[in-house]
């Protein structure tokens, strides 16, 4: 027994001594001889890995090298290599992208409410958010993979640090800068299945590390993997002219052609961007970025009575963003304007819009280990459809100029204590919107504790809001049509007092580096998200006589449903010689409480959709219920497996998988036959593989297969069947 204790005490002494040996400080290193120094392993060769290990929030970084080695053909596709991100293909190159789910809530909703509206996407910290209905029109990203230095993804509500809309997380795309003096050039050309052509190039110059500029351009064409569209009536994929809803379009063939100008096309887009950096003095960094973009895609967005589930979306946008880091001040101003036609051929789905974002931050000189950064933010989004619709008869979605303004104050603090082992990071933000006219507060508190250099535990508590949406606030549309030889009028109105979608998070994480070449990152999270909104049928009257047969009112209002998530993400990074393994998996469960499938108030007219009994079947009739939400996969993940097979040859596998899900659309309520309005998405494993060969230091050839097993299972409601795609490409880098 004594021996055991002696042994244990001895081991304990060793470990205390070792932990006390702070080898990483420069002064302690100076005491060592060169011979000793040569035997100390380098903690982390890359700054990225180091910062990821210490990061207080759940976050991942995807680098340009990973994107290149993996054979990914777009920024959206590359997000499949990030833990906690669900990427479903709708058509070739068009995806619906969610961080940790919260998709298809409320279930049985109109199609418009399917796609992600809770993730904030930014380019160099500048939001590229769609204020219309939340989320991101991914095809309108002006940049492409040649512009990407890295993509940072933060999981969990992060409005206090990144601004409202970061409800389920943030995707921040950081662009490249010419690091070396002299000429800079990057070019990619990829050609693959289904007329997929992806070309992009940048040229730039770095003058003495004081001034640099890049001009970059990108062009993509992708055809669909199938030529048919889903027909609700026959429940089959049929040619466009056989789709029942398309056939009955009263405006005839002209409008059908206008809506579907290129039935085989999935995506055609181009963008031109400029990036300028000027560092006139040591602590002065000025930068500017500007660009234009045009896109035409067929994707899933919304439907009307005369469209298939796929529709054509077009957009033209322009942006300029200016940023200055001047001593302890940071100033950023961004302006974007554009024209958007998300449902081509429908006049009311057309508008111009512009957003202005301005941000000033001041980093107060740290007092001991406390640094504080206050900031002021102004943001304005204007959506205007008055040019394209007759506003007098409320023909447009909001029939006029809709303006959403935010003034915000933010405060970030970073405090290190206990010999820098404990770090507290806090953010708080107060947003004052013009509508709803009140203050909203969001916060984020994170604590990390470094047990030692290889073990870190962390806790996060946060609360975030989604920006008020244009359709929620400003909808102002009169829908009229024939009803039994007379007409009906349905007024759709916005709600300037709507409560904003809110998410609360509690998270615990543990990061460990058991060996120099192994890093494990585990996070456990739970969230509660409430104040979802939807179009509610408020009231209506049938008139027995007169030209008007029916008049009804719908408005945008909050629902009683709230969602709770419980989940865990595990990510591993293991390097063995020329091999790198980065597997990751998320397990999660989402429950919906107080969900009512009835989108009508108790005062609504009796209709089949409320079993002719609105007093019983209405938006409140779900109180006290709970159900498992099936639209978010319970298990999803993937891996980045890289083998540097030789000095020039690299082989990469990036499998991706998710478990089965069920998406529910409003037809499910109408028909309730388990088929219409229901998409059973099968569990799926897909494998992507890429081989790259460096002919010279500057030129790399690539051959890649996306979806190598040709798994055609659909990934999104009535979407196209994904197919095996083979790409050949050449990359040039000076």
């Amino acid at each position, binding site marked *: 027994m004594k021996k*055991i*204790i002696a042994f244990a005490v001895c081991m304990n002494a060793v*470990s205390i001594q070792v932990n006390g040996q702070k080898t990483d400080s420069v002064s302690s290193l100076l005491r060592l001889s060169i011979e000793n120094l040569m035997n100390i392993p*380098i903690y982390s060769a890359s700054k990225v890995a180091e910062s990821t290990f210490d990061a207080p929030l759940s976050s991942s970084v995807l680098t340009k090298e990973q994107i290149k080695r993996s054979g990914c053909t777009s920024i959206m596709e590359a997000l499949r290599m990030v833990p906690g991100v669900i990427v479903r293909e709708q058509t070739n190159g068009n995806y619906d992208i969610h961080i940790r789910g919260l998709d298809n809530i409320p279930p049985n909703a109109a199609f418009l409410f399917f796609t992600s509206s809770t993730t904030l996407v930014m380019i160099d910290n500048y939001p590229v958010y769609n204020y219309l209905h939340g989320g991101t029109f991914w095809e309108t990203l002006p940049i492409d993979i040649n512009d990407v230095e890295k993509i940072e993804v933060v999981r969990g509500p992060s409005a206090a640090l990144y601004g409202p809309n970061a409800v389920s997380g943030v995707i921040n795309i950081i662009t490249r800068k010419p690091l*070396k*003096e*002299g000429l800079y050039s990057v070019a990619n050309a990829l050609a693959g299945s289904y007329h997929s052509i992806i070309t992009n190039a940048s040229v730039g110059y770095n003058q003495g590390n004081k001034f640099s500029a890049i001009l970059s351009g990108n062009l993509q064409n992708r055809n669909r993997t199938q030529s048919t569209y889903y027909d609700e009536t026959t429940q089959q994929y049929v040619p466009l002219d056989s789709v029942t809803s398309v056939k009955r379009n009263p405006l005839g063939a002209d409008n059908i052609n206008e809506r579907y100008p290129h039935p085989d096309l999935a995506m055609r887009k181009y963008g031109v961007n400029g990036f300028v950096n000027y560092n006139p003095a040591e602590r002065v960094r000025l930068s500017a970025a500007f660009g234009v973009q045009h896109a035409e895609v067929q994707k899933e967005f919304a439907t009307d009575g005369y469209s298939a589930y796929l529709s054509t979306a077009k957009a033209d946008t322009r942006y300029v963003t200016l940023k200055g880091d001047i001593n302890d001040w940071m100033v950023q101003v961004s302006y974007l304007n554009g024209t958007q036609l998300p449902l081509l051929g429908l006049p009311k789905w057309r508008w111009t819009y512009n957003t202005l974002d301005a941000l000033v931050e001041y980093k107060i000189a740290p007092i001991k280990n406390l640094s504080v950064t206050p900031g002021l933010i102004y943001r304005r989004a204007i959506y205007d459809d008055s040019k394209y619709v007759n506003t007098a008869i409320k023909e447009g979605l909001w029939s006029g100029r809709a303006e959403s303004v935010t003034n915000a104050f933010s405060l970030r603090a970073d405090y290190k204590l206990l010999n820098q082992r404990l770090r507290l990071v806090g953010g708080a933000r107060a947003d004052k919107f013009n509508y709803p006219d009140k203050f909203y507060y969001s916060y984020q508190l994170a604590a990390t504790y470094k047990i030692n250099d*290889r073990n870190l535990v962390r806790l996060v508590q946060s609360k975030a809001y989604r920006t008020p949406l244009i359709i929620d606030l400003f909808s102002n549309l009169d829908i009229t049509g024939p009803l039994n030889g007379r007409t009906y009028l349905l007024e759709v109105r916005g709600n300037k007092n709507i409560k904003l979608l809110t998410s609360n998070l509690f998270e615990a994480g543990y990061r460990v580096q058991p060996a120099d070449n192994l890093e494990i990152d585990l996070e456990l999270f739970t969230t509660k998200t409430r104040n979802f909104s939807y179009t509610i049928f408020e009231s209506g009257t049938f008139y027995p006589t007169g030209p008007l047969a029916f008049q009804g009112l719908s408005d945008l209002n909050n629902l009683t449903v709230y969602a709770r998530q419980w989940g865990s993400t595990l990510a591993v990074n293991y390097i063995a010689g020329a091999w790198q393994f980065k597997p990751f998996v998320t397990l999660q469960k989402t429950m919906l409480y107080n969900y009512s499938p009835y989108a009508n108030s108790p005062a609504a007219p009796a209709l089949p959709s409320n079993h002719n009994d609105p007093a019983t079947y209405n938006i409140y009739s779900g109180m006290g219920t709970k159900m498992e939400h099936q639209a978010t996969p319970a298990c999803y993940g993937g891996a980045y497996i890289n083998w540097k097979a030789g000095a020039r040859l690299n082989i990469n596998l990036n499998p991706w998988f998710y478990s089965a899900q069920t998406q529910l659309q409003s037809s499910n309520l109408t028909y309730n036959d388990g088929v219409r309005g229901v998409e059973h998405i099968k569990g799926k494993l897909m494998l992507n593989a890429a081989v790259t060969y460096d002919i010279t230091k500057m030129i790399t050839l690539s051959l890649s297969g996306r979806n190598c097993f040709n798994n055609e299972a659909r990934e999104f409601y009535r979407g196209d069947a994904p197919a095996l795609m083979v790409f050949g490409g050449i990359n040039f880098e000076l």
Partner: protein
Amino acid sequence: MRNFRLFIALLVFTFRSVSIWGQKDKASEYNLKAAFIYNFTRYIEWKEESAENEFIIGIIGASPINDPLGEIVKTETVDNKKITIKRFSKPADISFCHILFISQNAGVALDDILAKMSGKGTLIISEQNGYAELGTAINFVIVNRKLKFEANVRAINSAGLTASSQLLKLAIIIK
């Protein structure tokens, strides 16, 4: 009592097994590089530069080595001389220094630097593969996640410097 002891032993042992992951010594790359550079000054002999009463380390290009070198300057000296750090962004700006560190971010033609510093008595240290072959005196390389250095003896000598055999024994010699 016996159980209590066993409990303590297990507790202690558990603690040990947790902390085993933290026990390996390690350091960040640039802290190590800074320590190496300071160490080199003990093994290199510079020509007498009577005019210089300080020891000058130059850095060309932005580099994370700035901070750790800044730490060293605060407390250490070389031959009882104060150490000064000078930062340069292009070869034309470079003035005399005892050691010149070429950051991998420097983005400057190596030839320009070598031409500028030829025969000036400067120990040129780089951190990019192949640079010692191209004429820098010392080049840092990372082998199995450990920091090693290449020494180009001809370059050291032609700069008018003398490296001790002790140092060269540890180096990867480039001819």
